[in-house]
């Protein structure tokens, strides 16, 4: 009668925390302010205004900046997750790092690029040593494991295999919350990821049937994947993709060949940020957490872009163009 949201007290608490943290979000002008700095050392005072301020040390090496940003994002996301009655909003953002770690594990490496999200480094190490007992369910369901759990996936397509499992895992997580906003966000994110995977395959001249094998079956996207895989010319893809993602694709395909995929990726990220911003209007609930983490991820990506861009002396105009829409 009054409120249908379960676990209101816990969501209220974490949403209060988020309200405080949101005050630290930075507008686009902040990033353009960093871009116009002449020397990389002039950037440091600006970073004191960011979420990274607690991570900056005099001994910091600029080359570690990307890992530092990732660690900051992970620390905040995991801390927020521990206060939430449901881990799903945070898991959706931590999952990508887990699958990249998993990719390293499948290659036999025992050093992982991302901090712990859902899969612990112990489990990943076990996978690296050929023990697949603790694999996430969507990976197991993707097939590729024979008698006695032996991995039969050809090493050359392991990334396509994991991409398919990652997207299926994302969809499963999004279904678990019953939030329309999160479902819409994940739907568009998965659709855009499928388009990018297949688009890259076409550009590299890799047969799409190989990707199709590992991406399928992917719930409501099965038909779209089959249709796209049957059309070798991406210029005809827009109608098959459909919706807002189809419109963004049509805008990107008009550009120069080299910029098409990065431009599409940028447009999709901005579109997803637009969806996530709706969560700001909620006083308490999973959408609020999800929106905050989405904004934090974009902020970290922008910080990495401007700092690594400055380090690599990339043109100011290019950096400004590649900046993603900010949460605030």
């Amino acid at each position, binding site marked *: 009668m*009054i*409120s249908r949201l379960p676990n*209101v*007290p*816990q969501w*209220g*608490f*974490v*949403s*209060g*925390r*988020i*309200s*405080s*943290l*949101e*005050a630290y979000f930075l507008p686009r002008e902040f990033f353009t302010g960093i871009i116009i700095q002449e020397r990389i050392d002039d950037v440091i005072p600006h970073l004191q205004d960011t979420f990274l301020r607690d991570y900056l040390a005099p001994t910091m090496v600029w080359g570690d900046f990307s890992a530092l940003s990732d660690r900051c994002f992970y620390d905040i996301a995991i801390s927020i997750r521990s*206060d939430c009655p449901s881990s799903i909003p945070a898991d959706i953002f931590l999952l990508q790092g887990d699958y990249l770690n998993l990719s390293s594990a499948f290659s036999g490496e025992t050093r992982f690029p991302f901090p712990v999200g859902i899969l612990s480094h112990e489990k990943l190490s076990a996978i690296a040593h050929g023990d697949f007992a603790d694999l996430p369910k969507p990976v197991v369901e993707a097939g590729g494991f024979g008698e006695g759990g032996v991995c039969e996936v050809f090493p050359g397509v392991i990334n396509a295999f994991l991409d398919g499992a990652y997207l299926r895992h994302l969809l499963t997580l999004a279904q678990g919350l019953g939030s329309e906003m999160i479902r819409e966000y994940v739907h568009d994110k998965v659709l855009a990821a499928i388009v990018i995977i297949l688009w890259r395959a076409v550009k590299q001249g890799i047969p799409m049937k190989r990707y199709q094998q590992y991406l399928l079956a992917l719930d409501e996207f099965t038909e779209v994947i089959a249709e796209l895989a049957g059309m070798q010319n991406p210029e005809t893809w827009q109608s098959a993709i459909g919706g807002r993602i189809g419109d963004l694709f049509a805008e990107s395909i008009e550009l120069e060949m080299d910029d098409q995929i990065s431009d599409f990726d940028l447009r999709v990220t901005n579109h997803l940020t637009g969806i996530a911003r709706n969560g700001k209007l909620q*006083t*308490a609930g999973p959408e609020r957490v999800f929106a905050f983490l989405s904004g934090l991820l974009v902020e970290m990506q922008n910080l990495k872009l401007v700092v690594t861009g400055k380090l690599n002396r990339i043109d100011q105009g290019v950096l400004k163009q590649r900046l993603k829409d900010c949460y605030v």
Partner: protein
Amino acid sequence: MLPEWIELGRGLCYAGAGLAFGLGGSGSAWGIAIAAHQCAGVLREKPELFGRMLVMLALPGTQGFYGFIAAILMMTQTGLIGGSVLKITLGTGLALFFVGLGCGLALFISAIKQGEASAAGISLIARRPEAAGRAILFPAFVETYAVVALLATVLFIIFLTQPLALKSLGI
């Protein structure tokens, strides 16, 4: 005082009084809890904002007091407290019961909604502490309807019990 001494009209009147303070108090507790959880989350990151959020936290508590005032008024006007006990007809008792129920419901819902409005205001203060003055307006607007409910209840109780008082004086 034997139980059979309480006639049906009087019983209905006190049942209404019970609903007024019971629902008002419950709503206030619920509303404060909603605001308190949000407030606790903000304080985890910014403890210095406690002073600015205190009023927002306390506002949903007023409905509990309004319910208490309505109940006390019913008791004094009917002579249960501080006066000679008046005989209440079934019709008057029924009317007072629904006055108490209406008051209780208005207080119950407004207290919960005020808690939600306070939580929204607390979120705003967390992001922009300088907006505390404006943020307090959100729950204050909800408070208006609790005050209106109390006023209507007070007027109803006074006017419904007036003929009884006059009769008891022999006028």
